């Protein structure tokens, strides 16, 4: 609210401004002025509201177009289903919420006041059935005695199970706002970063002034404006700046801003949150103003703006006065009435009355008179109405009453009469179709309070102003309680210069533009006692009497008041209602407003769609996808893939005619165990550990020794967490005196790297060792089965000795492949078969897979997937992720003997704790169903035979299962109390989740080739 209230020239302007509304031919716009406004009459637009065809102009919002079309009833309230009209002209609108668009793009709870009109726009009113005019649920009004504050808590308490089954579904059906489409959002959303010296929030007189000053001073400036058009209240309030009309000044200022290469003006961009370190969240509505975004363009963009300084010039929001019937269609904020007239050339009504407690409200009268609207009366509650205002009334010929509105009458299509209780005691009835109300202005303190700074109360303007702001932020202009145009321009200028200087930009910025300093002259009036419902929170139907009831029932604290009555919890987040609600609570509880306090402000300041927060991170792009070097080749072969973390791994390779996955997996296992197969294991984490102290370093992080490992040898290693629990395992090889090649499990590759870096940098910087992740640099394949050597001999140079003597078990060395590529060969086995792992630079991975198939054709080679890999490791009793589950010790896994007694290592001390060496612990065992035809399921609990299943009799659980083609039955691994002493014992596998209970035998976890001869052969 800025602009001049210069009354000296008022008379002349009123005389000159008389323009009667005329509906252009073919237009439905009965309430549109034929001149004026920031709309393009050459660009008519068709739209529908509740299926009815209407027209508007480019530059309209849906709300202004509805006003121009004479639409007054736009929605039904949440609880009582009362008829509601448009209340505001901004993003704080509580009433005019619509479902915008149709099909998959249908968006509920869209504010008509911020939705820009476009050709073909479709909007539906909400919260009514069967139609807006005849709404069945408005019967709730008759039941209003039970729908008081806290009615959910009081009414739907008993019997308890009725809540879920009956009450909640019924309430949800009755109370819901708009409907979401239920379909996937077809549009794209983007996320972006921006950096600047000075972020200016809001482009009213303060914001433009601040951006100009900071921009002239040389700062990199972003000016963010949520509206489609920069200017703020300058677009609606008239007035003069620097001897010209405020609109002309604005045009010049915006032209200068766009000429400055260091200034970026972002319209349709709402700053919604203040985060740490000068980071601001902003939502740019890139293509909300068109029916569908153009191809390759996004609908909305989420900005994270990093600013050294921020000037909040977010203005203020006019607040309603609480009186009987203040929610009737036709009662509108005074500033909104002005906006519709001045900016949109649309008349909210033909006979306008004003109810105000301050001088600013009178500017609506000026605007209405200029537009040729009849003023039926002004009701001013202040004891001393300024003389110049009374003089204006006299000149223009309307009545002024000192008093209050205590009731309004009229149906769903709007008000018709207003009852005024005069201060002198008599009552007057006034005919009017529109009542503009102004209860004063609330500075927008939201952003300034996002770091929990509490707003402070100012008696002179009867409003809260920002208290302690987040670091780097200043608030200026109306948002800081400076309501006059002149003060806004000066404050913005000063804030802009200071912010620029604090970010090191100090060029000359000139002086601020001059304008008048009119006074608000408010005498607070919050609530007028009356016979009927008087609304504080329009959208949630919170009335003055609800607040009084909350106080009587002990919910006096503002946080309790909010939750008990739902005051301020609607989509406007209390921007229209909170301060008024507090004031009424202060009144009924006999405290001052500052004593009553405020609730905490949190982001987002305006609603942000989940789609915008997600950006491109949805569906297959929810996270990044990592592909193995042989992925393309595996896909060509028709492999089924499984997600393991970010990786896609081949799970099995079905052959034509195989009826299910089990057939394929059994075949793969049998082929490997009887012939040869290979599997891409590149997903294992790989880390080069280099330096003179590499061995000493590994000795500290592994429980077993690595400094004693010979060059050209590999060793299985186990790492503990500091608390003694197993962290990870893997095979680590010594490639040179000062070079180890460490592998991790696929899942722990990142965490282990991070942990090792912690050890190296934070714990033991004295060790001369370096770590490099090389997971992505090497393609690694496991080649397994009795014919492995035959296959390898086909691809390595003939001079390479692969015999058991020349390349023994656990040996490692470089070999030359035919064609010249140098590969690393590791004689290690996870499958229990004679096996090697071969690694080549990742770019050769695809070729290696293809060549293994060609070279191995004569041996019947097959690729195998992660399922067959898993089957073979369970058959061998090798532990993996399900056993390394964050609860198991080395002893539990049967690996306790690996722990070195000659050197210290991480986890040694706490692994020796009583509880971790308890002989009753659950340890890894093998499990197999007594009924060989039975399928074993992981997750089943082991219970002694004859015991009743309970936490007391629970002795463990099944961790990993598979169908073993070698044993011809399902087998598994499990963790069972004292399991190693109980081989041969029959226990029950109890599986309440699947309703199963069957006998299983505890056995040695090494089901296949327990002597290990095959892998050493």
């Amino acid at each position, binding site marked *: 609210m800025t602009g001049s209230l210069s009354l000296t020239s008022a008379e002349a302007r009123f005389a000159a401004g008389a323009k009667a509304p005329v509906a252009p031919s073919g237009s439905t716009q009965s309430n549109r002025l034929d001149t004026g406004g920031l709309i393009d009459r050459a660009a008519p637009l068709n739209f529908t509201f509740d299926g009815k065809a209407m027209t508007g102009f480019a530059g309209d919002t849906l709300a202004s177009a509805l006003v121009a079309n004479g639409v007054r009833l736009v929605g039904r309230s949440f609880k009582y289903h009362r008829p509601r009209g448009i209340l505001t002209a901004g993003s704080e609108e509580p009433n005019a919420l619509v479902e915008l668009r149709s099909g998959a793009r249908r968006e509920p709870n869209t504010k008509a006041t911020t939705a820009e009109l476009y050709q073909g726009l479709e909007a539906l009113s909400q919260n009514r059935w069967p139609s807006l005019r005849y709404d069945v649920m408005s019967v709730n009004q008759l039941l209003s005695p039970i729908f008081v504050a806290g009615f959910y808590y009081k009414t739907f308490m008993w019997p308890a199970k009725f809540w879920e089954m009956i009450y909640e579904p019924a309430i949800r059906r009755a109370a819901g706002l708009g409907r979401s489409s239920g379909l996937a959002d077809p549009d794209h959303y983007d996320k972006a970063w921006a950096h600047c010296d000075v972020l200016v929030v809001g482009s009213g007189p303060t914001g433009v002034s601040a951006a100009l000053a900071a921009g002239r001073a040389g700062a990199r400036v972003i000016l963010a404006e949520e509206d489609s058009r920069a200017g703020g209240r300058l677009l609606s309030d008239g007035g003069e700046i620097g001897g010209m009309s405020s609109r002309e000044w604005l045009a010049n200022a915006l032209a200068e801003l766009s000429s400055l290469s260091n200034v970026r003006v972002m319209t349709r961009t709402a700053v919604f949150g203040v985060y740490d370190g000068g980071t601001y969240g902003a939502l740019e509505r890139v293509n909300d103003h068109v029916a569908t975004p153009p191809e390759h363009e996004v609908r909305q963009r989420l900005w994270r703006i990093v600013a050294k300084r921020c000037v909040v010039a977010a203005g203020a929001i006019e607040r309603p006065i609480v009186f009987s019937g203040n929610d009737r269609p036709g009662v509108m904020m005074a500033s909104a009435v002005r906006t519709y007239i001045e900016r949109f050339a649309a008349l909210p009504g033909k006979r306008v009355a004003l109810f105000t407690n301050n001088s600013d409200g009178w500017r609506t009268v000026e605007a209405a008179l200029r537009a040729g609207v009849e003023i039926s009366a002004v009701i001013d509650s202040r004891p001393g109405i300024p003389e110049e205002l009374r003089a204006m009334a006299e000149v223009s010929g309307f009545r002024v009453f000192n008093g209050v509105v205590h009731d309004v009458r009229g149906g769903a299509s709007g008000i018709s009469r207003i009852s005024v209780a005069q201060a002198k005691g008599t009552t007057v009835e006034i005919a009017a179709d529109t009542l503009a109300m102004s209860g004063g202005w609330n500075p927008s303190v939201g952003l300034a309070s996002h770091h929990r700074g509490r707003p402070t109360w100012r008696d002179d303007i009867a409003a809260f102003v920002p208290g302690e702001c987040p670091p780097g932020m200043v608030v200026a202009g109306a948002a800081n309680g400076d309501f006059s145009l002149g003060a806004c321009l000066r404050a913005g200028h000063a804030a802009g210069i200071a912010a620029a200087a604090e970010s090191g930009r100090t060029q000359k910025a000139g002086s601020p533009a001059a304008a008048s300093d009119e006074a608000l002259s408010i005498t607070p009036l919050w609530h007028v006692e009356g016979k009927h419902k008087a609304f504080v929170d329009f959208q949630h139907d919170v009335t003055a009497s609800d607040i009084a009831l909350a106080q009587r029932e002990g919910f006096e604290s503002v946080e309790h008041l909010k939750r008990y009555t739902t005051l301020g919890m609607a989509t406007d987040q209390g921007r229209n209602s909170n301060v008024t609600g507090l004031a009424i609570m202060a009144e009924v509880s006999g405290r001052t407003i500052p004593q009553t306090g405020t609730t905490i402000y949190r982001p987002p300041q305006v609603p942000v769609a989940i789609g915008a927060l997600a950006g491109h991170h949805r569906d297959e792009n929810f996270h990044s996808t990592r592909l193995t070097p042989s992925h393309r080749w595996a896909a060509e072969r028709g492999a089924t893939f499984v997600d393991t973390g970010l990786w896609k791994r081949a799970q099995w390779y079905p052959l034509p005619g195989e009826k299910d996955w089990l057939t394929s997996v059994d075949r793969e296992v049998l082929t490997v165990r009887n012939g040869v197969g290979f599997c891409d294991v590149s997903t294992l984490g790989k880390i080069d550990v280099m330096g003179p102290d590499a061995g000493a370093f590994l000795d500290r992080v592994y429980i077993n020794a690595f400094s004693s490992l010979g060059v050209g040898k590999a060793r299985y290693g186990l790492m503990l967490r500091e*608390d003694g629990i197993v962290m990870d395992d893997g095979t680590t090889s010594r490639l040179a005196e000062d070079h180890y090649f460490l592998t991790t499990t696929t899942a722990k590759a990142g965490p282990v790297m991070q942990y090792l*870096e912690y050890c190296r*940098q934070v714990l033991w910087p004295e060790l001369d060792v370096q770590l490099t992740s090389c997971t992505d640099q090497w393609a690694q394949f496991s080649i397994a089965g009795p014919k492995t050597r035959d296959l390898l001999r086909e691809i390595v140079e003939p001079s390479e000795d692969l015999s058991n003597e020349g390349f023994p078990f656990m040996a490692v060395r470089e070999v030359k492949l035919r064609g010249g590529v140098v590969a690393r060969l590791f004689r290690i086995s996870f499958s229990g078969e004679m096996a090697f792992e071969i690694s080549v630079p990742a770019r050769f991975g695809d070729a290696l897979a293809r060549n293994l198939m060609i070279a191995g054709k004569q041996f019947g080679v097959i690729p195998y997937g992660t399922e067959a890999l898993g089957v073979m490791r369970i058959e061998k009793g090798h532990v993996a992720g399900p056993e390394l589950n964050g609860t198991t010790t080395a002893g539990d896994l049967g690996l306790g003997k690996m722990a070195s007694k000659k050197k*210290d290592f991480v986890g040694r001390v706490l692994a020796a*704790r009583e509880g971790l060496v308890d002989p009753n612990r659950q340890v890894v065992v093998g499990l197999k169903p007594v009924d060989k035809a039975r399928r074993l399921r992981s997750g089943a609990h082991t219970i002694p035979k004859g015991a009743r299943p309970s936490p007391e009799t629970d002795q463990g659980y099944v961790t990993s299962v598979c169908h073993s083609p070698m044993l011809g039955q399902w087998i598994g691994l499990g963790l069972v109390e004292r399991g190693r002493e109980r081989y041969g014992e029959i226990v029950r596998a109890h599986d309440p989740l699947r309703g199963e209970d069957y006998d299983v035998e505890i056995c040695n976890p090494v089901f296949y080739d327990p002597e290990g001869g095959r892998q050493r052969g």
Partner: protein
Amino acid sequence: MRIACPFCGERENGEFTYLGDAKPQRPAMVALEVAGGAAGEAEAFYDYVYLRDNVAGEMDEYWYHGGGCRSWLRLTRNTATHEITSVEAAPGTGASSSPASTAGTIS
């Protein structure tokens, strides 16, 4: 939140991983010939692993710049305001030079 990495410059916190309190120091590695470890080491490790102050205010913390230079950093951050007053590379601050019997406890 933004962290000024001494190697990479100011970066947003999504590039970093939080570890926690930087005050506890790991007791030094010991030679196991000393009868299986140092006296009192179980208590010292218990303190090191589990005991933490619940600081409302300035706290020294470890952060890992995994999305950048892979450095472990030691920050002084106010847990109530998120204000960061110092960032430095962390080498050598996490382990005591003394064995468990004399180090690792939190004052």
